[in-house]
């Protein structure tokens, strides 16, 4: 017989099936390695970094006071008397207002997403891991929010609560919790079915320990990727709310608000009026492309 029985005597040494890999790399190390070798993501990441830096250092780099009005300097074109990017309908320097406007836009873009990722992430992980009725209760509640298009939902909530930066962020957070929750729940459900969770239970670990050591690390990737893609959506939604008068109040510089007020002057200085739109476009597309790069770097089949 040439089956396994002929191997009855123990093999003395265990030979290795594959030669050892030369570089031992952890998951996050390999993600950074792939990111470092992705020029597109790196390039757009640099632009994002520049925008963030400009917003943070706005008082240092803005050439003029963004609130300083001038009756004679209204709606001037590019380069008029040191106003590199012209002036708006109240004679305020466009470059300074764009730089300061980035602060509000980034705040509105990042903060709601981060808070929603935390709330939605926790709800999703708990629902996905516990399963059963808890999961049904959480996910059906989220489905109620899902029934409305996100823009409509944002407008409705903002309209009911009134404008302002705080209310705007609250609105956007509420809009983003359901999708974040769904992403976390899906990832958790997939992980929960794998044998290593059962193995962890067999080692005597409790639910919280398993979530902490075995679930969170696996859910973080998808949540992070999705959150990064939501930042650009959030910036756009925030601009939209401001444009409709439901977000930031004048005279605070905000790209959406600037677009709204300048649109009446589009035939006077079209290029200047388009600037806030260009800023929104560049920022959101940069965040989108960085998010795509992140997805490519993190979403590897192991």
């Amino acid at each position, binding site marked *: 017989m040439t089956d396994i029985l002929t191997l009855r005597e123990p093999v003395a040494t265990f030979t290795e099936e*594959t030669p050892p890999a030369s570089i031992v790399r952890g998951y996050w190390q390999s993600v950074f390695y792939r990111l470092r070798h992705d020029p597109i993501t790196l390039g757009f990441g640099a632009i994002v970094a520049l925008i963030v830096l400009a917003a943070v250092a706005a008082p240092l780099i803005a050439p003029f006071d963004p609130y300083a009005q001038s009756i004679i300097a209204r709606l001037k074109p590019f380069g008029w008397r040191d106003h590199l990017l012209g002036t708006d309908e109240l004679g305020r320097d466009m470059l300074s207002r764009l730089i300061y406007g980035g602060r509000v836009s980034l705040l509105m873009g990042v903060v709601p997403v981060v808070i929603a990722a935390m709330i939605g992430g926790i709800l999703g992980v708990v629902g996905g891991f516990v399963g059963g009725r808890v999961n049904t209760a959480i996910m059906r509640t989220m489905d109620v929010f899902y029934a409305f298009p996100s823009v409509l939902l944002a407008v409705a909530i903002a309209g009911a609560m009134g404008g302002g930066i705080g209310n705007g962020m609250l609105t956007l957070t509420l809009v983003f919790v359901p999708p974040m929750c769904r992403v976390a729940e899906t990832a958790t459900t997939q992980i929960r079915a794998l044998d290593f969770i059962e*193995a962890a239970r067999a080692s005597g670990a409790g639910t919280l320990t398993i979530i902490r*050591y075995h679930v969170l690390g696996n859910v973080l990737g998808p949540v992070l990727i999705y959150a990064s893609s939501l930042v650009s959506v959030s910036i756009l939604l925030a601009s939209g709310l401001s444009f409709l008068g439901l977000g930031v109040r004048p005279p605070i510089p905000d790209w959406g608000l600037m677009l709204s007020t300048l649109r009446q002057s589009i035939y006077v200085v079209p290029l200047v009026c388009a600037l806030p739109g260009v800023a929104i476009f560049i920022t959101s597309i940069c965040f989108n492309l960085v998010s795509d790069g992140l997805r490519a770097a993190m979403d590897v089949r192991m």
Partner: protein
Amino acid sequence: MDYRSSDGSTIDRHDQYDHGGPAPLLVARNLRKHFPVKGARGKAVRAVDGVSFTVAKGETLGIVGESGCGKSTLARLLLHLLVPDAGELIFGGEAVGAAGGIAVKTLRRQAQMVFQDSAASLNPRLPVRDSVAFGPFVQGSTKDEARAIARDILSRVGLDPDLFGPRYPHELSGGQKQRVNIARALAVKPRLLILDEPVSALDKSVEAQVLNLLRVLKRQLGLTLVFISHDLNVVRYVSRRVAVMYLGRIVEFGPVKAIFERPQHPYTQALLASRPSMDPARRIEMPPITGDPPNPIDPPAGCRFHPRCPFVEAICETADPALRVVEDGKAHFAACHLRDRALGRGRLADA
């Protein structure tokens, strides 16, 4: 109902499967697990339907059966990863989960499991040494102690802890991953290791290495093994005793030699006949049995094997056969009417 065992003593019917060997480490009595079918009130998949056996200290018990016969469910019941609907589990002489017995947590310190899918049973985001150290850490060791245990156990399964410890599962081959899984299970120093198809996903050469590793570890660490597989050759190689399962029941149980050389149940005979043979003269053209196993939601009345049995008789369709001794003086049992000497059919239908 009492009967004489090999050493001449009369033993209780409940302990009929423990035959004069060393003290049992694990006793399963009438374990049952039914999974309710959604949308069909009262219907259930009878995955494990009244299974009893003992595992003696230091032995290897093999459990064989085709897909869907309840092997994996049984494995999970033995660790209380699934809670049995009925029946009793006795570990080291104490009932598990019952008042006055040992807690499930204690059971899980002393019994561990290795799963079939070596990749899915390791956390892809943890270096394998952390996966191995997780068990001891959960059981109360400090992080440093747990790491030291992980190093020791990794080298025992033939993986250099410095070379392989920091690696992630995707950087290991299937055989290496399964070794890590064995290390992970052994890290909490269990007495009983349940192996659910541990080598089915490995190719033949790696399979032999892992099986030999298990033999060595069993001897070194004084382990008791429950080895579940659909591969008859593998089970024959590792086991001392074998249980053959069919549709949630044990249909034949006995020493490995008796089962493989003198199979008594028609199902076991068919299983053995279905093995591929390297000898052209022994090749069979026709499958020994045909058809799929019946639906476990609605198992056939009487003997569960009767719709596929080549020797079926009238009694098989009505009466459910019990496990009975089929060889004089040997702990060899089969659940088949055709083997029931009370009916005067002790030697019918020999293969």
